[in-house]
C-alpha cells in the first residue's frame, strides 16, 4: 500500500511539534506539582525549535499527504505568527498561572495542540482538513478558556465559547456537505476545477455561505462576534492574548486559502459578504469599544474591529492579479496585530491582580509614574492599534487600505479611515488615564513579562519605522501562490 506524494520531510516541523506535545504530556507526569514551570520551559523550547526550523525555510513550495497539505510561504509565515504567539503566551503563562493559582502542567501541551491545529489550518488544502484543524485548535482552547476553574467567569466563558463554537462549526460542517454535494470534491484544487466548469449553483452558494459562517465565527466578525467580549474577559488573560491572535489568524488563513484558490472564480458572489463583514466589524467593533470600562472587553471589541480591517484586505482577493497582494496584506496585518495585541495583553496581565480587580481602565491611572516603561510600551501598543505612525499598526493599515484601493474600493477605505478616527477615542483614553491621571495599585512584572513587553514594543516600533525587509519577505513568499 503506497501513498502518493506523502512528503513527510516537508511536514517535519509540524510532526515534530505534535510529537513534542505528546511527549510533553508524558514527561509532565514526572514533574512535581510545584515545578510545573519546567513543563512550560520545555513547551517553550518546542515552540522555539519549530519557530527557527520553519523560519529557516520560508520559501518552500511543496505539498504533502497526497495534496491535502500545502507547505508554502503563506503557511510558513503564518506558522511563525502562531508559533510566535505561542512563545510569547507561554512566557507570560510561566508566572501568570502561578500567580493566579491555576498552575497545572496540562496547560502547555494543550497550547501546543492548539498551535498544531492552527498550523494545520494554514496548510489545509482540503475542506475536511480545514474542519479537523478548526476543531483541533478549538477544543484545546475551550479547555484553556476554562482553565481557571476556580473562577466562575472563566467557566462561564468556556461554556459560552464552547456552545457557540460547536453551534457554528455545525453550520460549517453542513456547508462542507453542501459544497461536497455541489462539486463532488473536498480538495480545493478539485473544487476550483469543478466550479470553473459548472459555475455557481444554489447548493454551492449555500455551502459557501454556511462554511464562511463557521470561519467568520472564529475570527469574530460581526454579527458572529457576540461571544468575543465575554470570552476575552472571562478567560485567563494569557489564553486571551494567545487566542485573540492565533485563532483569528488561523481563521483568516483558512478563509484566504479557500476563497482565493477554490472559489476564486466566484468572487462576485462572496466579495459582497466579505465587504459586509468588513464594514459591520469595523463600525460596530469600534463604536462598541467606546462604552467599555473594562480593558479586556475594550480589547475584545478592538479585536472585532481589527478582524474587520483584515476583511478589508481580503476583499481585493477576488480581483485576479490582486490576490497575492491581498494575501500579503492579510499576513502583514495579522503579524502587526499579533505583535501589538500580545504586547497589550502582557500589560493587562501585569496590571491585573489575582482577584481580577485590576482589569478596569481606571486601574491604569498613574501607571506612567508607577511603571514608566510599561506605560510607554502600552502607549506604543495603543498607538499601533489605532494605526498611528510610526508604529507597525500604521504600516499595516496602510498596506490594507492600499490593497482595497487597488481593487477600487475607495468608499471602503473611507469607512476604514473614519472608523480609525472613532477608535482613536478609546485607545487614547487608555493613554490619557495612564499619563494624566494619578492613582496607585501594584504592578506585577516578572522578568519573562518584561521580556515579552520589551520584545513586542521594540518590534512594533522597529517594524513601523523599517517594515521594508519584512514586507519584502512577505511578498516574495506569497508571490504566485493564489
Amino acid at each position, binding site marked *: 500500500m503506497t501513498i502518493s506524494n506523502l512528503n513527510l520531510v516537508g511536514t517535519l516541523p509540524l510532526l515534530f511539534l505534535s510529537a513534542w506535545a505528546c511527549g510533553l504530556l508524558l514527561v509532565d507526569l514526572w514533574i512535581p506539582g510545584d515545578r510545573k514551570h519546567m513543563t512550560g520551559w520545555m513547551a517553550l523550547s518546542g515552540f522555539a525549535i519549530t519557530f527557527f526550523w520553519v523560519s529557516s525555510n520560508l520559501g518552500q513550495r511543496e505539498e504533502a499527504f497526497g495534496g491535502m497539505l500545502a507547505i508554502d510561504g503563506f503557511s510558513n509565515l503564518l506558522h511563525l505568527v502562531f508559533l510566535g504567539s505561542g512563545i510569547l503566551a507561554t512566557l507570560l503563562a510561566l508566572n501568570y498561572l502561578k500567580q493566579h493559582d491555576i498552575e497545572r502542567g496540562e496547560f502547555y501541551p494543550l497550547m501546543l495542540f492548539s498551535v498544531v491545529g492552527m498550523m494545520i489550518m494554514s496548510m489545509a488544502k482540503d475542506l*475536511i482538513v480545514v*474542519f*479537523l484543524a478548526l*476543531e483541533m485548535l478549538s*477544543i484545546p482552547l*475551550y*479547555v484553556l478558556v*476554562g482553565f481557571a*476553574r476556580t473562577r*466562575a*467567569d472563566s*467557566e*462561564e*466563558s*468556556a*461554556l*459560552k465559547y*464552547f*456552545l457557540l463554537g*460547536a*453551534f457554528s462549526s*455545525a*453550520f460549517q*460542517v*453542513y456547508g*462542507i*456537505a*453542501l459544497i*461536497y*454535494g455541489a462539486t*463532488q*470534491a*473536498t480538495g480545493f484544487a478539485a473544487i476550483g476545477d469543478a466550479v470553473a466548469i459548472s459555475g455557481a449553483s444554489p447548493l454551492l452558494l449555500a455551502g459557501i455561505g454556511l462554511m464562511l459562517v463557521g470561519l467568520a465565527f472564529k475570527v469574530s466578525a460581526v454579527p458572529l462576534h457576540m461571544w468575543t*467580549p*465575554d470570552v476575552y*474577559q*472571562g478567560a485567563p488573560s494569557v489564553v486571551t492574548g494567545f487566542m485573540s491572535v492565533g485563532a483569528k489568524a488561523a481563521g483568516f488563513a483558512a478563509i484566504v486559502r479557500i476563497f482565493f484558490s477554490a472559489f476564486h472564480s466566484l468572487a462576485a458572489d462572496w466579495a459582497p459578504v466579505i465587504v459586509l463583514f468588513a464594514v459591520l466589524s469595523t463600525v460596530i467593533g469600534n463604536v462598541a469599544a467606546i462604552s*467599555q470600562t473594562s480593558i479586556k*472587553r475594550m480589547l475584545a471589541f478592538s479585536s472585532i474591529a481589527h478582524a474587520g480591517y483584515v476583511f478589508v484586505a481580503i476583499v481585493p482577493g477576488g480581483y485576479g492579479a490582486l490576490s497575492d497582494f491581498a494575501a500579503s496584506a492579510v499576513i502583514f496585518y495579522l503579524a502587526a496585530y499579533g505583535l501589538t495585541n500580545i504586547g497589550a495583553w502582557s500589560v493587562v496581565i501585569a496590571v491585573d491582580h489575582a482577584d481580577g480587580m485590576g482589569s478596569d481602565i481606571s486601574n491604569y491611572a498613574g501607571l506612567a509614574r508607577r511603571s514608566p516603561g510599561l506605560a510607554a510600551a502600552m502607549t506604543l501598543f495603543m498607538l499601533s492599534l489605532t494605526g498611528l505612525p510610526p508604529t507597525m499598526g500604521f504600516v499595516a493599515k496602510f498596506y490594507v487600505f492600499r490593497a482595497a484601493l487597488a481593487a477600487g474600493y475607495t468608499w471602503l477605505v473611507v469607512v476604514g479611515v473614519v472608523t480609525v478616527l472613532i477608535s482613536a477615542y478609546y485607545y487614547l483614553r487608555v493613554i490619557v488615564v495612564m499619563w494624566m491621571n494619578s492613582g496607585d495599585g501594584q504592578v506585577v512584572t516578572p522578568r519573562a513579562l518584561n521580556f515579552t513587553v520589551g520584545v513586542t514594543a521594540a518590534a512594533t516600533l522597529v517594524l513601523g519605522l523599517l517594515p521594508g525587509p519584512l514586507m519584502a519577505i512577505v511578498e516574495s513568499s506569497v508571490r504566485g501562490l493564489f
Partner: protein
Amino acid sequence: MIPTTYYLALSAILFSIGVIGVLVRRNAIVIFMSIELMLNSANLAFVAFAREFGTLDGQLMVFFVMTVAAAEVAVGLALIVAIFRSKASIDVDAVNLLKG
C-alpha cells in the same frame, strides 16, 4: 431509488430542528444534543451525496465528523459537569455573569 434531493430535504429539516433546539432550549445538555442533531443531519447529507457520486469520500467525511463529535461531546460534557459543580444548575440562562 430515492433521489438524493429527498435526503437533502430531510437533512435540512433535521438540521433546522437542531438549530431551533439550540435557540430555544435552556438546558445546556439539550442544547448540546441539538448540536449533535445538526451534525448528524450534515452526515446524512454527506452519505446521500456520496451515494449519488458513487464515491466513498462522503462516507469518510462522516467518519471524521463523528470522531470530532465524540471529542466535542467529551469536552462539552466535562464543561457542563464543571459548571454544574459551581452553579448547581445547567440552565444556560443562569450563566450570565459576563455581559455588557
